[in-house]
């Protein structure tokens, strides 16, 4: 080792790829996909993918907050579905919209608080805590809807979920606003800094006077709240509600975050990576269908990507 490297200059290439490889990969994926199947890059298909990206992107942002805190939120899908069935709980005209939004947010706040309190005050592992709340929420939802939700969604939600604003899907606009706001929260606010410190080294965080419990609880509340938002959008998009809106989002959001470089060991990764991870996932799913491969390949590729992405970042951080 020479004196110069002793100060810790890593190889430029390695660091560059660890940080920006994910963006490069998305670009290559889109370019490659366009070559394989020109309809992949048609404006209709891109619009289609962006509409799909909106709910997953919103959920993955919240998931990223939780994972950066060293946690995991398996309850997001259940929160989404519960928020979704709430749209048909009251009257079917727009007058019930404020009530629906308020109940969905209250439910999300409660779930996030329970998750966060279990993880911090009771020391329950995030995996089990959020799994348990997910199951309980599912039970409450079934009980509330007697197994099969009925009723109609107020038109306002359908407009938000499926409508356009000057050619741009409204859900996409909401997603972008959320992404920008939470990018600022994570990367520019005092809370965001505290989250990185607590997630990266909870003991060191405590020693500099941070209240790690509060920081972690807030992360779970953010995750639940964003999941509820995504649930409302998805319900509006579908136009009808069922008890399983958002099924699979808990794993997809974790996968997207991991692909995007949010490390499960906590304290690393960011919003841009997580969102790009979600975009990659959606693009792969879409491409599998476009080239006429059986839909099962979506699943297989997703599984392989999880392991490969995790291994990629682990190797990078080890070297």
């Amino acid at each position, binding site marked *: *080792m020479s004196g110069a490297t*002793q*100060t*810790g*200059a*890593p190889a430029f290439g390695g660091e560059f790829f660890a940080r920006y490889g994910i963006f490069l990969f998305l670009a290559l994926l889109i370019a490659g996909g366009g070559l394989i199947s020109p309809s992949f890059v048609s404006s209709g298909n891109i619009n289609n993918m962006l509409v799909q990206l909106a709910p997953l992107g919103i959920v993955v942002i919240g998931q990223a907050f939780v994972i950066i805190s060293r946690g995991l939120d398996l309850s997001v899908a259940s929160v989404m579905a519960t928020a979704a069935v709430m749209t048909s709980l009251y009257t079917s005209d727009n007058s019930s919209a404020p009530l629906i939004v308020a109940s969905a947010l209250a439910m999300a706040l409660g779930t996030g608080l329970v998750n966060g309190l279990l993880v911090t005050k009771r020391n329950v592992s995030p995996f089990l805590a959020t799994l348990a709340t997910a199951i309980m929420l599912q039970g409450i939802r079934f009980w509330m809807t007697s197994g099969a939700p009925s009723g109609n969604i107020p038109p306002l939600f359908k407009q938000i979920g499926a409508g356009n604003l000057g050619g741009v899907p409204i859900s996409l606009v909401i997603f972008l606003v959320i992404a920008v706001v939470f990018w*600022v*929260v994570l990367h*520019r*606010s*005092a*809370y965001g*800094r*505290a989250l*990185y*410190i607590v*997630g*990266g*080294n909870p*003991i*060191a*965080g*405590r*020693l*500099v*006077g*941070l*209240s790690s419990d509060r920081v972690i609880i807030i992360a779970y509340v953010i995750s639940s709240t964003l999941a509820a938002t995504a649930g409302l959008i998805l319900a509006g998009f579908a136009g009808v509600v069922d008890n399983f809106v958002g099924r699979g989002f808990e794993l997809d959001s974790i996968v997207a975050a991991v692909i995007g470089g949010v490390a499960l060991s*906590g*304290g*690393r990764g960011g919003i841009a990576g997580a969102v790009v991870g979600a975009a990659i996932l959606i693009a792969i799913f879409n491409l599998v269908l476009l080239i006429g491969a059986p839909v099962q390949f979506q699943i297989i590729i997703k599984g392989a990507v999880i392991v490969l992405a995790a291994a990629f970042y682990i190797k990078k951080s080890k070297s």
Partner: protein
Amino acid sequence: MLALTGIEKSFPGVKALSNVDFEVRAGEVHALVGENGAGKSTLTKIIGGAYTPDGGTITYDGTARRWNDPAAAKAAGIHIIYQEFVLFPHLSVAENIFKGYEKKTAFGLIDHRATRRAAQEVIARLGVRIDVDERAGVLSVADQQMVEIAKALIHDVKLLILDEPTAVLSEPEVELLFDLVRTLRAEGVGVIYISHRLDEIFELCDRVTVLKDGQHVATRPIGETDHDELVSLMVGREIENYFPPNAEAVDMAVPPVLHLRNISVPDRVRNVTLSVQPGEILGLAGLIGAGRTELAHAAFGVLDHDGGEVFVHGQKVDPVSPGAMIKAGVGYVTEDRKGQGLFMNLDVARNVTGASLGEFVSGWMISGRQEIKAAKTEIDNFAIRCRGPLGDVDKLSGGNQQKIIFGRWTRACHAALVLDEPTRGVDVGAKAEIYKIMRNLANEGIGILMISSELQEVVGMSDRVAVMREGRLSGLLEGPDITEENIMHLAAQTDREAA
């Protein structure tokens, strides 16, 4: 029986050993001495197969060996008792002793009863009373040490390495251990004995080898050397200008910057009262397990304490928490820099500003530009060698990492600093720099409580020295009374020395 020649070993940022020769004969107790960080532990880990050397040869029993795992060394009869125990806290004592070498029945199954009985025999041979069915995690530290030794004794030991074995033992237990080592020597076992306690070495060992900064300094038969020579070999000659001059006089008339009153922690700290005056460095010495770190943790509010009060500048801090202490102006530099100090996931600037974030926040937002400016200031102040404010901290040397931590706390705290082993894992050059930093801080009026296990450091840096033993304050030394011997005496309070 064991000869090492030209051993080299580097870790990222640190050269741990360079060109070290070392030899042990059968039936001798060979002491290995040197300051913390001199390379003793690295050398023993190489002998024990836990590390592979980068260069050099190992000859054992007349043939060249190259171990790359501990099992191979163990099979060859080499056993190490590490300073940090390798125990499974939830397994029983008997299982820990025989881990990997369980007694088997005729069918190849583990015979728990025979294992248990054999464990009782080994424990009996050690002459201690330990319940072999107890979980190892609940034993006292001294008993855990005995279990570690028992683990070696079940084998046909040819070479036994003891790394600071007496640090946690009481006097009768030390005598037991010495008898045991003498018995093993008589049986032809080679023993490498690492200790800071020079009197033990003169009592027990046949030869002594001194390491310093990763290099072999000297090997002497014990009869041809003395205490003073060993100390000067270990420390080297630069000791005179190594440490900056002490404070001219500590003003005891002004109220202390940090005053701990009757602090107690269950089982660890009993009724300790201490005061740190502005501008002084108060050394806190004691053996491992004496309760010094626990005292600091209790005073900083990260360990529940039974009772006691903490005052900063005469104001009571209540309740005590890290946040409240930082607000009052007291910072704590942990002994475990990587595990509890640095934010490895963040850059230099964010590590520097970590304890004084409020300074950079307006409304909700943090000003990144202000942070970088502040970090640049600290990088210049402390001569931190790094790629700049946005560089990573994980690949920096221990000294530069520690200076980042100093930068963090001096920004946040202006009353007092509690430094826990401030130069652990720091190389010699950086040590001198850190000593200078500490003295400059004290000269600015900050009170420093320095916990240290390096006697030279305590003697060289402290204006006053408090010594702890078994959770209690056993003495306070000032001026010319601050000597290694006096500190050791208070820390260990051995009857042997008194006799």
